[in-house]
């Protein structure tokens, strides 16, 4: 499915309540909501005391000691926000819900109907929203743009300016002035990419468009290509009112109709899992979806959902639940049992993986692992946190070494792969696979004896004086059931520190298998097949 590009005449209006997570819970009381010990929302009294988004928990609570710190409750946020969505849906036909407190709607039609975008904004801010927004919630930021990205940036600027911000239609200068750091705040560009671009002097969309499509695509891959499209106003994402004809979709009908939301959600869950696993979604992730319910009285509820990061099956079922919950709770909205549920994927994106970065370098999972390794190093000492490194050799335990991670882990996955890739030619005489998977830190001395108790000796020609029958270890005796070898090896025969030893595989009667080595007539366990 190829999403249609945004037309130049597209006009999208973003309504954003920046502190919805806190204000819908606490209203006029000072309250701060944290995520991972960082402020994500605060009520007006808390903000007045100096609390800002992104602040650390310690700093925020010091600034406003009397503030409540409720846990984030996404269900409640969406339940409270349902009334706002319903009110907006009454005004305009296409509303995309990005998150609780954040919607985008196609304003072109309503602007023609009401006589201009300014009148639509005025109607929204002064008439529609005050009636449905809970007490204590600050007025929303309102921005209008020609694409989802610029509309979100306009809303961001509106939040700072305190009044609606509108991108002038047909004026590319406004779009050219959009800073990449603003796109980071709206989630359209990741911070690392913006940082890299800013260091080479690309700080605004105007700089991106000046570089050209080929240069951006060649140097920055799909991220560059996408940024260039944004810079020329060609945002492929559109509100769900424009459902592509070939959009992947699933429909479930209920006979008899269901008067209970739980089986509806279950059915939607099955449908969503099937939908996301369908061949049409191969290699792509769902970023926009339209969910629709119908009743036996021909009532319907239709809502679009959008998420830049992608909608997984869990996220989609969450949205089914929120939408159904809000519809059922709305007085007079539903008078009969539910007969249908449909999920239509309206927008997709390439599944480049959350972990992939510029030039295919280290991703988020790699970075997280490196940070965790550093943290472990701080706890136990850097020398105790190790990674494997190929050294080569014939003897078990020598072919790979555990080296300190702080020195050996690279920022480049290719180098890490090279670190563990066997190379440097063949090692005749090395133990063939499978290798013992457990190696004693220090070889464990044992006695290998024949059936009559005679110590087993490996002769100069690599032959045994008797068949191995028992292995004595720390006072216990193990019966050898199967054995193979010996395999002699001489290392560095040309040097004074040469070694000559032989190896023997044995399987004991308890099923354990070991690799023994004899050197100077002393046997030891050098590896175990555990």
């Amino acid at each position, binding site marked *: 499915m190829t999403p249609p590009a945004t037309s130049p005449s597209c006009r999208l209006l973003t309504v954003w309540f920046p502190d919805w997570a806190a204000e819908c819970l606490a209203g006029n009381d000072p309250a701060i909501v944290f995520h991972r010990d960082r402020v994500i929302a605060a009520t007006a009294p808390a903000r007045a005391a100096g609390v800002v988004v992104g602040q650390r928990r310690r700093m925020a609570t010091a600034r406003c000691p009397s503030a409540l710190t409720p846990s984030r409750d996404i*269900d409640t946020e969406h339940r409270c926000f349902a009334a706002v969505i319903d009110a907006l849906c009454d005004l305009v036909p296409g509303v995309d819900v990005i998150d609780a407190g954040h919607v985008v709607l196609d304003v072109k039609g309503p602007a023609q109907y009401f006589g201009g975008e300014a009148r639509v904004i005025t109607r929204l801010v002064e008439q529609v929203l005050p009636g449905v927004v809970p007490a204590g919630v600050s007025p929303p930021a309102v921005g209008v743009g020609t694409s989802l990205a610029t509309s979100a940036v306009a809303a961001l600027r509106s939040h700072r300016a305190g009044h609606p911000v509108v991108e002038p239609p047909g004026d590319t200068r406004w779009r050219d002035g959009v800073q990449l750091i603003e796109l980071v705040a709206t989630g359209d560009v990741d911070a690392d990419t913006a940082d890299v671009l800013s260091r080479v002097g690309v700080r605004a969309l105007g700089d991106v468009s000046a570089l050209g499509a080929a240069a951006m695509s060649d140097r920055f891959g799909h991220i560059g290509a996408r940024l260039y499209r944004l810079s020329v106003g060609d945002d492929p994402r559109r509100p769900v009112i424009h459902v592509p004809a070939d959009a992947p979709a699933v429909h479930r009908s209920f006979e008899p109709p269901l*008067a*209970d*939301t*739980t089986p509806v*959600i*279950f059915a939607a*869950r099955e449908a969503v*899992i099937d939908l996301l696993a369908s061949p049409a979604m191969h290699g792509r992730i769902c970023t926009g979806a339209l969910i629709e319910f119908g009743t036996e*009285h021909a009532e319907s509820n239709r809502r679009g959902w959008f998420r830049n990061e992608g909608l997984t099956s*869990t*996220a989609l079922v969450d949205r089914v*639940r929120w939408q*159904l*919950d809000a519809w*059922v709770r709305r007085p007079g909205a539903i*008078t009969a*049992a539910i007969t249908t549920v449909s999920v239509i994927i309206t927008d997709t994106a390439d599944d480049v993986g959350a972990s992939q970065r510029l030039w295919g370098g280290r991703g988020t*999972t790699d970075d*997280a*692992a490196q940070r*965790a390794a550093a*943290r*472990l190093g701080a*706890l*136990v000492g850097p020398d*105790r*946190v*190790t*990674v*494997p490194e190929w050294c080569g050799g014939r003897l078990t*335990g020598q072919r790979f070494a*555990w080296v300190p991670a702080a020195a050996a882990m690279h920022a480049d996955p290719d180098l*890490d792969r090279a670190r*563990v890739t*066997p190379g440097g030619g*063949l*090692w005749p*005489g*090395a133990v063939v696979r*499978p*290798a013992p*998977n*457990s*190696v004693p*830190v220090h070889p464990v001395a044992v006695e290998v004896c024949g059936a009559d108790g005679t110590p087993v000796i490996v002769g100069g020609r690599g032959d045994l004086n008797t068949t191995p029958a028992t292995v004595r*270890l720390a*006072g*216990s005796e193990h019966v050898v059931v*199967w*054995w*193979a070898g010996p395999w002699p090896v001489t290392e560095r025969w040309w040097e004074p520190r040469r070694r000559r030893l032989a190896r023997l*595989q044995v*399987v004991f009667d308890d*099923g*354990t*298998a070991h690799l023994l080595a004899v050197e100077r007539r002393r046997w030891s*366990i050098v590896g*175990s097949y*555990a």
Partner: protein
Amino acid sequence: MGSDAVLAALAGTAGVGRAGDLVAPEIVRVPSSVGALFPHGGPLAGSVLACEGPAAWSLAAAVVAPSVAAGTWMLIIDVATAHACTVEPEALSEAGVPLERVVRVTADTAGSVHVIDLVIAGLEGFGVVLLVDPGSLTGAAERRLRRRLVDRGAMVVVVRPHQLGRRVTRGAAADAVMSTSVIGVDGIGEGWGRLMSRRVMVSASGRRMHGGRHVEISLPDESTGGVSAPDTWP
């Protein structure tokens, strides 16, 4: 059905159930032969598995290999190093574990840092934690571990290797305990051949595994396609 009754019924059920309860549980990728031991076809994300017996290491490597091969990082917390053995990277590689995503930390049981703190710190960045012979965990420590595991959707595999001359300690309660017993070996005889694989009976018991389950598998499993140094037998 009357409208009022429908409304009442629908309103009464509004808000019930969370997506987490409704969506199929996330299953950790394991070899199909091992997956047959589990009711869902594999262990659930956020669970603790234990591998015991004479093929504990081989089984643990086979269990974690698909996840690490799919991009997850693995942390090995080696508590037993001071007095026993250490894991051989080559064997992990042969089992299909990409070594470039493996980190090992050796824990000192006499040190001030509890092994559970290492596990919890590791879960911040590693999706699979291989815990070697951790000994016993207190109830509080285990609860902390479980909370974090569920949050992260990670998997902890406790390896309790069979060691000569040492008793195996009982550690944290696992969601599934997979006990191994060797029922045969391939490739080796009385003075000939070489050990190629072992036929292992794996018995699983634990939560939602009433009556226990058994499966016979070959370890190492050649189908995993692990990468190793070229075969150069003498």
